[in-house]
């Protein structure tokens, strides 16, 4: 055999071996079909390569090839969700490095290369992408940000970004914003690396989301492996593309199976259960497109793209350019051009992709276009993830809705029109006063007095002397009567710190009555029901619930979840894990969103997200402080899949709008607060406080142990440690909650409890 043919045969053998291994990866083992036999045949050919005649060798390899093609077709025809997950996890699948090499003309990695990097799982590169228009090349600068899984490189952590990796991503997003270049975000992560070290997994994702909601350059995201919160840290985009053989999910199928099957730590999760969960989670591209959590699917070869699929990279380049064009065009105020360009683009799409574009579109935005970009982003996310149900409202409720509309108009006039006017007058008076000093005072004083008479300042404390409020004991209030039902048992309990601090056994009626669930020796806070807070934190009779008609549902038709929902509804008498209400604290009116433990462990799904958003909007419209009191949250509800995950960017975006408009957003964590909500709309608050003995974090100890292989100390998630790490800004005693909240509202809220 001549040298060239010999080389060809070597490549052929290697390619066939890769294909066999790839199918084995997808089907979960080499024992599927006749893979073992084919592999043996290829290896036999390899061994006697130099003894065989050229024709004999190629005949044998061609036979294997044909057989493999048949098997590949068979696999592709009936690809299950778990097999899609296996495709994504295969070491032969393309990674960000391949995209950078093949889709972009040149790139410079920023923030280190390879192992010498603050987080090798996150790759940032300043790259150039070309557009060919009528045989002419145009170059676009972009910031490419994404996860790098590496090819067996251990230091990449399989694409699990550490908090400082996400911080790096955010830093360069800001650079892109300064430079006015679009961001291309590539998501290849099974999830964020769950460590609490500063800046903290959850808190950093929250910061990323908070900042990305207002980044004034187009962001286009491409998802290959979208593992929940880790994906969201870079996934808040104007256009979300997804690989046809990728997955985007709230949790890994194994994680979901461990929860559903109540598998103990270290126990083996049955394969059937994992497959079942993968199916139920609706994680494939088609599912996500149907759920509208992504905008478009990028077609891959039937068994997914691999490192050498150059045709796929050409398509991806084309799609990324086109997607960025679309985002830019949507912001254009010149409607004729926008509609013309979008029409041309849709024609291109219907004709199938090619390398050429009909027109050149610049990706820089003017100030007005930036504003429109942000508006469109907000509108887009507000319309996503609506997997809840709305009950038909009674006449009373409809009436209250009408009242709500009137109220909104009233607040618009009061705080929009009049406030603007009053501010200007106020400012003018102040300026004139300071300029003219004492001399002018005699002139301005009557004017000011008249102005104050016409538009009086709001009386925030309604005549209550602030000093008096602080002097009051909490045990002297009217609401003293509420006693937790936990106090009805005649028995004692032990404080968990009794060995350390020598706490004596506590008689339950004392503990849950007079002591408000607090150990008098060490101050440990025993959990109390959410009703205790409703009764004791707010002014008596001031709690007015709203949006009760929005209820949790089972949008994915997750098997068995309907029964679980029914049970939760029966147990709690409520229909979602969040209660939103107007209330007042020492006569300061506030809007409150309360996630509570009794209903599906306070997990957040579509209904919870929607109610939170509406509460936040209500606080914005009525210009009231917004309190998120988290009695407990177990994270995003896995049974709602990505409809739950999407609540993370959705709610954060609305919180950002509220804060930007001048709102005071305070988050108080109690008991246990973990995962998605902390990594988004809660963790983004500037004012986060933990109640004593609460635990705050991203992933629980078990997930950390299973993911990182390292054990964590028992107090790893304690509020004290969260404070030490800078995740929260203070720890409050439950008995002082009301007083501290009032103080916080007064000190942080400014004179009108609303900044702008």
């Amino acid at each position, binding site marked *: 055999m001549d040298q060239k043919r010999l080389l060809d045969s070597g490549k052929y053998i290697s390619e066939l071996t890769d294909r066999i291994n790839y199918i084995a990866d997808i089907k979960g083992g080499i024992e599927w079909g006749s893979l073992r036999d084919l592999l043996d045949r290829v290896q036999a050919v390899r061994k006697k390569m130099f003894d065989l005649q050229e024709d004999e060798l190629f005949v044998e390899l061609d036979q294997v090839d044909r057989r493999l093609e048949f098997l590949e077709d068979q696999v592709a025809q009936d690809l299950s969700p778990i097999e899609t997950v296996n495709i994504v996890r295969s070491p032969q699948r393309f990674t960000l490095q391949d995209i950078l090499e093949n889709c972009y003309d040149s790139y410079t990695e920023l923030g280190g290369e390879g192992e010498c990097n603050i987080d090798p799982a996150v790759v940032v590169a300043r790259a150039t992408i070309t557009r060919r228009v009528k045989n002419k090349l145009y170059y676009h600068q972009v910031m490419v940000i994404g996860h790098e899984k590496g090819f067996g490189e251990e230091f990449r952590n399989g694409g699990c970004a550490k908090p400082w990796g996400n911080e790096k991503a955010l830093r360069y997003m800001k650079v892109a914003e300064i430079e006015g270049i679009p961001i291309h975000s590539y998501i290849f992560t099974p999830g964020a690396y769950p460590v609490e070290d500063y800046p903290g997994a959850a808190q950093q994702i929250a910061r990323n989301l908070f900042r990305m909601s207002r980044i004034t350059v187009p962001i286009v995201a491409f998802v290959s492996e979208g593992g929940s919160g880790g994906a969201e840290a870079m996934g808040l985009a104007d256009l979300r593309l997804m690989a046809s053989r990728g997955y985007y999910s709230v949790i890994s199928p194994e994680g979901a199976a461990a929860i559903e099957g109540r598998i103990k730590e270290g126990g083996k999760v049955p394969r059937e259960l994992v497959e079942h969960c993968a199916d139920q989670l609706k994680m494939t591209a088609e599912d996500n497109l149907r759920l509208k959590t992504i905008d478009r699917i990028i077609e891959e070869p039937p068994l997914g793209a691999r490192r050498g699929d150059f045709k796929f990279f050409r398509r991806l380049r084309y799609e990324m350019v086109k997607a960025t064009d679309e985002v830019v065009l949507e912001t254009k105020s010149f409607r004729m051009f926008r509609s013309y360009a979008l029409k041309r683009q849709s024609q291109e799409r219907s004709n199938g992709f090619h390398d050429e574009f009909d027109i050149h579109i610049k990706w820089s935005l003017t100030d007005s276009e930036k504003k429109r970009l942000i508006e469109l982003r907000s509108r887009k996310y507000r319309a996503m993830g609506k997997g809840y149900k709305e009950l038909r409202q009674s006449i009373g409720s409809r009436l209250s809705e009408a009242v709500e509309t009137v109220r909104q108009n009233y607040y618009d006039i009061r705080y929009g029109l009049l406030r603007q006017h009053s501010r200007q007058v106020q400012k003018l008076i102040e300026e004139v006063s300071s300029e003219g000093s004492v001399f002018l005072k005699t002139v301005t004083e009557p004017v000011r007095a008249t102005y104050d008479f016409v538009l009086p300042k709001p009386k925030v404390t309604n005549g209550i002397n602030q000093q008096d409020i602080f002097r009051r004991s909490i045990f002297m209030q009217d609401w003293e009567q509420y006693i937790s039902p936990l106090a009805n*048992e*005649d*028995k*004692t*309990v*032990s404080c968990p710190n009794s060995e350390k601090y020598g706490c004596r*056994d506590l*008689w339950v009626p004392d503990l849950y009555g007079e002591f408000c669930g607090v150990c008098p020796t060490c101050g440990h806070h025993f959990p109390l029901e959410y009703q205790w807070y409703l009764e004791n934190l707010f002014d008596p009779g001031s709690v007015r619930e709203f949006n009760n008609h929005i209820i949790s549902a089972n949008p994915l038709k997750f098997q068995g979840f309907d029964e679980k929902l029914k049970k939760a509804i029966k147990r709690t008498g409520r229909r979602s894990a969040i209660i939103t209400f107007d209330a007042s604290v020492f006569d300061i009116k506030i809007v409150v969103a309360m996630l509570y433990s009794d209903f599906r462990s306070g997990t957040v799904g579509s209904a919870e997200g929607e109610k939170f958003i509406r509460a936040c909007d209500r606080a914005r419209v009525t210009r009231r402080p917004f309190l998120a009191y988290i009695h407990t949250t177990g994270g995003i509800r896995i049974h709602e899949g990505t409809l739950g995950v999407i609540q993370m960017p959705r709610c954060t975006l609305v919180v950002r709008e509220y804060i930007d408009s001048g709102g005071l957003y305070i988050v108080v964590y109690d008991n246990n607060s973990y995962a998605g909500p902390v990594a988004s709309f809660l963790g983004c608050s500037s004012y986060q406080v933990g109640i004593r003995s609460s635990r705050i974090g991203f992933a629980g100890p078990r997930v950390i142990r299973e993911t990182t292989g390292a*054990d964590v*100390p*028992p107090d790893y998630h304690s509020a004290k440690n969260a404070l030490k790490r800078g995740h929260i800004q203070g720890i409050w005693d439950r008995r002082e909650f009301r007083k501290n909240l009032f103080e916080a509202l007064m000190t942080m809220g400014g004179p009108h409890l609303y900044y702008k």
Partner: protein
Amino acid sequence: MEINLKDLLKKYKSHPYEDHEIKTAHTGIVHLNVEDGQEVSGPTGRWKHRPGTLLYVLEREGNPKRITSMYTGFVTGLRKELDSNFVQAGVPVMVIRHSLNKDEIIDRILREVLYVFPAPQRARYFFTPEVAAAMEKEGANILNIKDGDEIVIMSLMKRDTLLSYLGPPGVLYKVYFRHGDLIEQGAPLLGICSPERLPFVERMIQRIRTEWDD
């Protein structure tokens, strides 16, 4: 006080155990969870956060308190008659007998034989350069120390303080810290052996290491 080393050795040879009597912390009804002779384990995990074997439940006023073993060993002297009965506080329920291994026996003997110089504060400790050089050159066991010798540096908040040895003169036999370790207040730093007792101690430890079964 003069220590009879032979007696000490004999004591550990005949009874290589450490007995821990488990008494009720308060009144209540005892529900036993172990059998006589059963092996039990103490707390485990890096932070000793996983409780040991459940020994018994002590119930008072509807509060069942799980009493777990703080030691690894086996149960002896179990008072079965207390099971499901009311007991007063301080009543012995069982004994956990912990079998001492060679290293534990040697450690205990040395604690009795040597003069232990404790760490005065929670700080990092180093040998003075001269002592470190001498130890590297000739080994620790021939370093003679007398009252007032400055042999250790205590490093705390970037301030180094020379520590003077206070105690009987002797040979530095055991060093309980590694260079630059953070040592808690009161933890042993150095073990000093009187020169006349040194050969016997060395022989005894040698014998334990080579002849005794684990």
